[in-house]
């Protein structure tokens, strides 16, 4: 991967940092009551997210899940409207109608995060069908977790994509837990190995904390898809540092404290920074500056979210249909 231009490598680090700082900020906001409900952070999973999203082109499509902020940020969505959406403001990327779980930014090919586990996998498959029928060369990628890998719609989608050679990547973010449930207790077999039975390559990225490894695997899948080779299932092993969702206090310890520490010890952002500096791509100063820039970006997004107005009451009755608000009968 030494062939990647320096700007691309730095951009990877920038996007990982954006996700980290954005989610740290969001977590704080939840605790302070500045965000209603909860959010699911991608802290710890940045390499997996950015390695995948940066392997896509700007025109490519993506669908996601409840662990939802990293995906659009990784795909290049500006932070202000994302943060405003988390707060429920009119300037939010969905006008305040979606919230954290349902971020979507069609401008960057983000077709929507889904609060329903597994439910957006067929959506990405359909985007790939469009691409195939219209022959426009776009690729689609569906993000989902190890828990979602047990939803039947994944296999219906994989089979259909296999039969039609659709340009789609099924990207399983295996952070080893679904809420309180360890993946190995509810998963029979190995997720990546499920691909073979559906006639497609299955790839397992064991070190999902290395953004380049993820990028490499997903890029190969994207290239294959774009050239007519059909779908790929990519499973990435990773870890979330925080609780399943912010503010969720579970009574039982389903994760070992040492386990978490060992993952924090090989942090994707710290190690990639080291890699960039060691390999001469960037200096320590440049990396410091990057941190400062990103923090400022997040701060600005926060300000934007605070200053923006809430939507007007009647907005609740719009956007149900394209023609008229027939949802309004109360």
């Amino acid at each position: 991967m030494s062939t990647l231009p320096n700007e691309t490598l730095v951009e990877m680090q920038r996007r990982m940092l954006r996700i980290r700082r954005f989610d740290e900020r969001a977590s704080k906001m939840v605790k302070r009551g500045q965000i209603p409900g909860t959010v699911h952070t991608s802290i710890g999973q940045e390499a997996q997210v950015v390695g995948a999203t940066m392997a896509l082109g700007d025109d490519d499509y993506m669908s996601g899940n409840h662990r939802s902020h990293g995906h659009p940020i990784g795909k290049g969505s500006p932070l202000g409207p994302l943060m405003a959406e988390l707060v429920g403001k009119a300037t939010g990327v969905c006008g305040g109608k979606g919230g954290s779980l349902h971020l979507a930014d069609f401008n960057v090919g983000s077709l929507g995060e889904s609060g329903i586990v597994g439910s957006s996998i067929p959506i990405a498959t359909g985007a790939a069908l469009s691409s195939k029928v219209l022959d426009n060369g776009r690729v689609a990628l569906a993000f989902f977790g190890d828990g979602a890998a047990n939803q039947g719609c994944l296999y219906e989608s994989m089979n259909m994509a296999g039969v039609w050679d659709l340009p789609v990547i099924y990207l399983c973010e295996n952070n080893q837990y679904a809420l309180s449930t360890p993946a190995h207790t509810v998963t029979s077999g190995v997720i990546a190995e499920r691909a073979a039975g559906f006639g497609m390559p299955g790839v397992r990225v064991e070190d999902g904390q290395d953004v380049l490894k993820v990028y490499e695997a997903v890029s190969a899948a994207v290239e294959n898809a774009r050239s007519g080779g059909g779908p790929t299932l990519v499973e990435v092993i990773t870890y979330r540092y925080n609780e399943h969702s912010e503010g969720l206090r579970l009574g039982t310890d389903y994760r070992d404290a040492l386990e978490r520490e060992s993952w924090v010890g090989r942090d994707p952002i710290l190690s990639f920074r080291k890699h960039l500096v060691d390999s001469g791509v960037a200096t320590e100063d440049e990396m410091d500056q990057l941190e400062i820039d990103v923090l400022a970006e997040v701060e600005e997004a926060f300000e934007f979210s605070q200053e923006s107005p809430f939507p007007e009451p009647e907005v609740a009755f719009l956007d149900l249909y394209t023609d008229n608000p027939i949802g309004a009968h109360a």
Partner: protein
Amino acid sequence: MTVMSYLGAIGAAQREAMEADERVIIIGEDVEANVYGTTGAGKSRKDKGDFLEMFGKNRIRNTPISEEGIVGAAAGAAMTGLRPIVDLSYSSFLYMAMDQFVNQVAKNRYMFGGQASMPVVFRSAMFYGLSTGAHHSDRPYPMFMNVPGLKIITPATPSDAKGLLRAAVDSDDPVLTFEACTLWGSKEEVDEAEYRIPLGVARTHREGSDVTVVAISGAVPEAIKAANALAEEGLSVEVLDPRTLVPLDREAIVASVARTGRLVVADPAHRTCGAAAEISALVAEEAFGSLRAPIVRVTTPDTQIPFSPAIEKQLYPDAMKIAAAVRRVCDVPEPAQETALSAR
């Protein structure tokens, strides 16, 4: 004008739409082979599946048996530039894809603040009265009526089928169409040229002054039959078909009851929380002042559908039951002698 069957009209509308817009595709199980007779340019299933010849495999797509995947993929395709018509064959198979219908198809535009548009049509046939048993006899439109974001049409005649389906394909919102198999055989003069019937406009099949019968889907011909027979008994029955259940032509229904003062609703769906309940509740709120009698629903009772031909047909709304309900709200006694209806 030419005589078309109900299925022929559906085929014709699909063909028109396919020819008019390259983004329209048909996907579903066995659509290549024209098994259900509507992907053969409106001809019966005996003919070659010529949609395949006309439009090719890229636009006529046989799917695996994966309803959830199909519906979701159609939604994703609609969000990214295609205008799919999904052939789900039997209405009973829609349940397989319920999550996609409710959580993606109906919600995405709203949830994403208008970013998504969802131009997709889901066709399915309601088989009932044909001894197809409990798994193939459902009339599930009421549960979809409770899901904001979906549009729902239930055409009852060939000309309505052609015009409404064409409007559905043109719509930028998701439309479900429920086609009662009891109507498949019906034939009428239909305009071969392109036309659209706007969603949300009821059709008055027969004017009358004593009572309004709102009839849905397969109940429409039964209501007309009842009205004709009751005319001989001196009752003037207005028969109104909403044609689209969402949006519902509330004004037409309320206006009719305001004139007649009485309402019977004939609805082949199950009774509890059915379309008839909605129409009754609408009138009880908005035309109460005009009402001179209880609102009576003629529906399929809240039982599942038995296979045996000896006991199935009694369950559905038919002309006899509709006539009995009309007599009840008009406070007219049942005729002592056999009538045209009871002799059926």
